[in-house]
């Protein structure tokens, strides 16, 4: 029982990290709200499905192409929408959310509905961790989840690009004065975030089936994890994912499972009331510094 919770709580948290990291990179680190995140997540899954099943490409090629496509969508979203409403947060949110709706409902209109579209798993077997059976796709999920964390950490900390992202997020104009091409950087950020959403989709979808509704859920989870962790902090994102992931599992294991959502929502609200800028955010103190 203890190991069940340990292992599967961990998997759940890793899945949350995967879902949230793209969003977190774009919004947390670059302050560009891409509320089409969930839609891109789902869309990438369907692109891969179509390339594999309809076009008949080999699976690895479909995966590669669909991830590239999600990056392309990100770039388009930046240049067509975000660039024009940059700096007007509410407009950014509504415009990207609406574009997300276009993708999701468009898919549904195109006939992609119901639970009959699936992606193949990378490997079919089952391994035992602490004597708890875990299928290989979930092992992959854990590994990739943490590879992604490491990657983003290295990227934001040690590369020129990562620093440009951080600079642009905090003060776009000051970044421009230092020679940072804000449009290009932002486009890259959105593209990267979208590709991360794509990667997450291609790992998580094979566990179940491709459904449009997942897009809305992923968005809410991503926002919650990113904000509870504190904007701009990758470590916060990771910790928030663990807090939310394990809080879900604990409720299931030790309490009544249907209080799972109540507990999780209360956890989010309580965290923010106690720590008004999330676990690692500094927003409030910074804004109130006189």
């Amino acid at each position, binding site marked *: 029982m203890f190991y069940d919770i340990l292992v599967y709580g961990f998997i759940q948290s890793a899945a949350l990290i995967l879902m949230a990291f793209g969003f977190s990179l774009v919004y947390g680190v670059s302050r560009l709200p891409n509320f089409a995140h969930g839609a891109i997540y789902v869309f990438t899954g369907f692109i891969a499905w179509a390339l594999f099943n309809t076009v008949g490409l080999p699976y690895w090629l479909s995966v590669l192409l669909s991830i590239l496509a999600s990056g392309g969508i990100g770039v388009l979203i930046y240049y067509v929408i975000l660039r024009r409403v940059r700096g007007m947060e*509410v407009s950014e949110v509504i415009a990207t959310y609406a574009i997300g709706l276009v993708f999701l409902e468009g898919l549904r209109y195109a006939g992609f509905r119901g639970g009959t579209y699936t992606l193949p798993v990378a490997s079919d077997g089952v391994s035992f961790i602490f004597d708890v059976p875990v299928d290989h796709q979930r092992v992959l999920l854990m590994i990739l989840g943490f590879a992604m964390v490491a990657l983003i950490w290295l990227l934001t900390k040690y590369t020129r690009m990562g620093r440009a992202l951080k600079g642009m997020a905090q003060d776009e104009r000051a970044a421009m004065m230092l020679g940072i091409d804000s449009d290009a950087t932002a486009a890259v950020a959105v593209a990267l975030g979208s590709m991360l959403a794509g990667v997450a989709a291609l790992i998580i979808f094979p566990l179940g089936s491709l459904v449009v509704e997942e897009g809305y859920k992923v968005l809410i989870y991503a926002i919650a994890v990113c904000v509870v962790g504190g904007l701009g902090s990758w470590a916060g994102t990771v910790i928030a994912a663990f807090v939310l992931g394990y809080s879900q599992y604990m409720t299931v294991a030790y309490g009544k499972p249907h209080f799972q959502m109540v507990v999780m929502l209360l956890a989010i609200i309580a965290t*923010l009331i106690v720590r008004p800028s999330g676990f690692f955010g500094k927003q409030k103190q910074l804004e109130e510094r006189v």
Partner: protein
Amino acid sequence: MTTETTQKRRERIDRGIKVRSESLYALNSFEEIAYLLTPRVLLIAAFVLMPLILSPWPYWGRVGLSVCILALLSISFDFLANYVGLVSLGGAFFYGVGGYMAAVLNTELGLPPVLSIPVATLLGAGFCTLALLPCLPLRGIYFAIVTLMYPLLMTRIIEAFDILGGTEGFRGIDGFSGFFTEQYGLILAMFIALFGLRRFVNMDGGLVIRAVKDNDQSVRASGISVTRTKAKAVFLASLTGCFAGAYYIHMYSNVGISSFALDLSIMPIAATIIGGAGTLVGPVLGAAILVPLSEFLRDFGSLRIVVYALVLTGFVVFRSEGLMNYMTRKYQQVERWVKI
């Protein structure tokens, strides 16, 4: 490099009539009065005549009501976001609380709509304000996210504890006695909210609230409690939102957990942005565009949301100031080319 003679600049200046009619006491011609009043009269007339015009088409009459409901929610959002600086993603919270209050008052205590609506509005607003009190120190996106969670939490609590009718809610709530009572009651309330809030934000009390948006540290330094000021503002906004909810459930005789649905939080924001943020009238205009648009598109089945979202994106991206701000500028200012 252009030579001196060809340099031209497009200049925007206030219309003479605007400048002249700026002060109320300066009104001295019919023209100026007309200039000032026309937009307001047009708005009022449109809404007052709406039920009369629509009465042969009962369906569009209902759509008109939905416009007013969304307008109320959007006014509430606009007020909070653009006058107080609290961007709330939880419009549905106000709406749902008002709705449930009215339903309980009506079905359990037997209050008729004339009583249940105002009582639910007041009680609901009090409840919402209390519930949001601990969140008032939050800023920006953090406040937005917490408010987003409130309606979700209400839904889950009602579900998990199976209270207030559980997922099924209340049915058989009293309706209104007649077509015109229903229509004009709501239209009147909308005007009260609209003009009341517009008046309020320009009074000294309203000014303090707006100051909180501009920068709350100075307000604190002026010896005014920011939390109390924000609470007052939230109370006003929840009055508007709760009223919408209370009225709506009497229109359709039922209430359920879907009164806390995400759509009800998103639509008002969309209406506000399309109509023009920070104008209070803009949201009404936005609602008057969005609701009928959505109804026209209903026949398209699932394509409806796609088209709707595209139109929305178009508005936001290409007219991001909002219609009302754009129109005000055109109405009040002229543009011309001037040589430098």
